[in-house]
């Protein structure tokens, strides 16, 4: 892997920054805005692909909190979440060559990777029962559960998060629950139906309606962010 100019050097000389080809698909993004002059996620990914550890360091600083929150939401164990976070960033480093700007945004790619690893970890441990029990216990303490009554004043939320959560909270609780179990627990429709004692067709309808509302809500959010 050849040595390339570091991202920090790129920042000092923005005119020499390599511009990536525009993705062919127009996408809407919900990612928070960056500070002026900060390298974009695409630039950092390009740096990682070129073997620049500084690019990985910056990407880590930018997203470790979000990815750890996602992992924790799946596995509910602080130490295991830290270990998994490290493994995931190592995988980002190792698999960066497989990232394509044409197919999506870096954050989406990282979240997909982190979610898959976290759910795999959960399944390997065969800890569904324990995790569910913990989830039950934590529901009242967990400030980030979707179905939660904490006031916004109790939690410092970013604008982006507030807006996204507003969209999600606008869903009926049954739709939120179905999406929560599918996305954060990796459950199939049948598993959700069994867990919630709901007909399979109802689960499917809840997922379809809920995801469509969130998707449509995100399109509207794009204009507000």
């Amino acid at each position, binding site marked *: 892997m050849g040595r390339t100019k570091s991202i920090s050097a790129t920042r000092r000389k923005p005119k020499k920054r390599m511009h990536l080809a525009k993705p062919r698909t127009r996408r809407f993004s919900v990612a928070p805005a960056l500070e002026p002059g900060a390298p974009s996620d695409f630039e950092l990914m390009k740096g990682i692909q070129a073997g620049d550890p500084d690019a990985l360091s910056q990407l880590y600083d930018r997203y*470790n909190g979000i990815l750890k929150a996602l992992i924790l939401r799946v596995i509910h164990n602080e130490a295991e979440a830290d270990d998994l976070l490290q493994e995931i960033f190592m995988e980002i480093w190792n698999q960066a060559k497989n990232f394509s700007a044409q197919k999506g945004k870096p954050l*989406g790619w990282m979240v997909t990777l982190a979610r898959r690893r976290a759910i795999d970890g959960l399944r390997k441990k065969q800890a569904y029962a324990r995790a569910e029990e913990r989830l039950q216990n934590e529901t009242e303490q967990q400030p980030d559960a979707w179905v939660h009554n904490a006031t916004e004043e109790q939690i410092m939320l970013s604008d982006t998060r507030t807006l996204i959560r507003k969209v999600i909270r606008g869903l009926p609780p049954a739709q939120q629950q179905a999406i929560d179990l599918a996305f954060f627990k990796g459950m199939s429709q049948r598993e959700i139906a069994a867990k919630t004692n709901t007909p399979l067709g109802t689960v499917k309808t809840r997922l379809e309606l809920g995801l469509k509302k969130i998707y449509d809500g995100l399109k509207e959010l794009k204009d507000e962010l």
Partner: protein
Amino acid sequence: MSFEQFQNQSRLYVIGALEPEELEEFEKARKKFGNKAEEFITKCYALHEAFALSLRPAKASTAIKERLMAMVKAKKEA
């Protein structure tokens, strides 16, 4: 399958919630709709970002980054 039905299935697909029998039908429709299908699926991945960003960021142990960067350095030097 109509394109509207395909769109509904795509949102389930990206979160891994399609059942095996639905997946087969989905892949057939995906081929049928071609680029239009691929573009829509790509857009659906914004749902992943949104779900992650809906969570309050969690603080990682400071040792994690040090270990990570040491591993990266070792791998580069290997």
